[in-house]
């Protein structure tokens, strides 16, 4: 039986030479049914073209480093199996909506700034000393925010969001989902610190509920839900006399 092969078309962009990204084709062996797109890129880098640049780390869908456009859809390349595409060729491009540094590597500065701006950590008005014991939470309390805490900051949701693509001032899906994750945490008291960012015109109100962010999320987070629920909460906090709580 002849060896199976597959064609990978990868974006190449050298900022010192190229005016714009271009696609380069690589014909590689498809020797194992468990091969993923990241394996194909690693094969190319090891055997065909060592200059190909891309980000990756854990290879198991945890670190969120290897997000790329695979045949036009934002995917973690460690979780995109070649068998799902073969015998068609696979086009691998950098995530949409971000500036490209080189080949498949995007500039994540804007996302990192937005992520930090929503203070995705537990904020206390006054820290309780360690000796005072734990902050108790019931399973029901954790269920309120559990799914939003699954976010791995892979930025696939930003690549899928046409609102962010058209206006990169938009706070975006993942940052809002993480803000909601902490706002819903019974241990947190930082809602008022996050609200000026989240409730800004470029925050939740910029979202027009395309919903594709939730479709592409590899961890089952529903950022669109987080944004719409935050809109409702913000409105109620504004309208109801008791809503402007701490």
């Amino acid at each position, binding site marked *: 039986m002849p060896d199976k092969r597959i064609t990978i078309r990868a974006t190449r*962009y050298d*900022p*010192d030479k*190229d005016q*714009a*990204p271009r696609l380069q084709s690589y014909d590689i062996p498809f020797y194992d049914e468990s091969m993923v797109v990241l394996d194909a890129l690693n094969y190319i880098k090891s055997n065909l073209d060592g200059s190909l640049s891309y980000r990756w780390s854990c290879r198991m869908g945890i670190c969120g480093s290897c997000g790329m456009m695979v045949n*036009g859809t934002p995917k973690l390349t460690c979780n995109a199996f070649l068998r799902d595409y073969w015998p068609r060729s696979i086009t691998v491009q*950098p995530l*949409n*909506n*971000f*500036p*490209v*540094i*080189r080949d498949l590597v995007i*500039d994540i500065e804007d996302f990192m700034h937005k992520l930090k701006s929503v203070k995705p950590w537990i904020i206390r008005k006054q820290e309780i000393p360690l000796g005072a014991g734990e902050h108790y939470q019931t399973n*029901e309390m954790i*269920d309120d925010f559990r799914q939003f805490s699954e976010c791995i900051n892979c930025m696939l949701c930003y690549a899928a969001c*046409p609102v962010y*693509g*058209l206006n990169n001032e938009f706070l975006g899906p993942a940052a809002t989902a993480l803000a909601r994750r902490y706002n819903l945490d019974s241990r947190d008291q930082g809602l008022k610190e996050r609200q000026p960012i989240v409730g800004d015109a470029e925050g939740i109100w910029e979202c*027009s*509920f*395309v*919903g*594709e962010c939730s*479709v592409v999320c590899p961890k089952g987070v*529903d950022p*669109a*839900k987080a944004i*719409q*629920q935050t*809109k*409702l909460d913000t409105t109620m906090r504004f309208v109801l006399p008791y809503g402007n709580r701490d």
Partner: protein
Amino acid sequence: MSADAETHPAPRLYRWRMPANWWTRNRHYFLYVLREFTSLPLAIWLLWLLYDISETRLVQPTAFAVFSIVCLPFALYHSWTFLSLAGSIIHIKVLDRPVSPRLIVASQFALWIGGTLVIGLLLLWLAP
């Protein structure tokens, strides 16, 4: 300029631009744009209705009837998509247990159908 910036100038980034036809590249994008577009004929229909109310008569009854029929599928599609999303948006608890999104969506559709029936009957009752 710092010494670091002199020795390591910032890389020249390729700025990605959203293509004008982005909404044709994905079924979800297309349905989203369709959903947003339906607001336009509905807004025109409403302005027309307001004008007729200000004139206290139907200025062009046949044309308005035809346009209303044209707008009906847009109104139904917009309402359907909007109400279907209610399960994602509304997050309420009863007796400390979250209400199922399906139940929330069903309640929205029930209110919609109920409201339509009440308004319809009211209009029939008011009709000369």
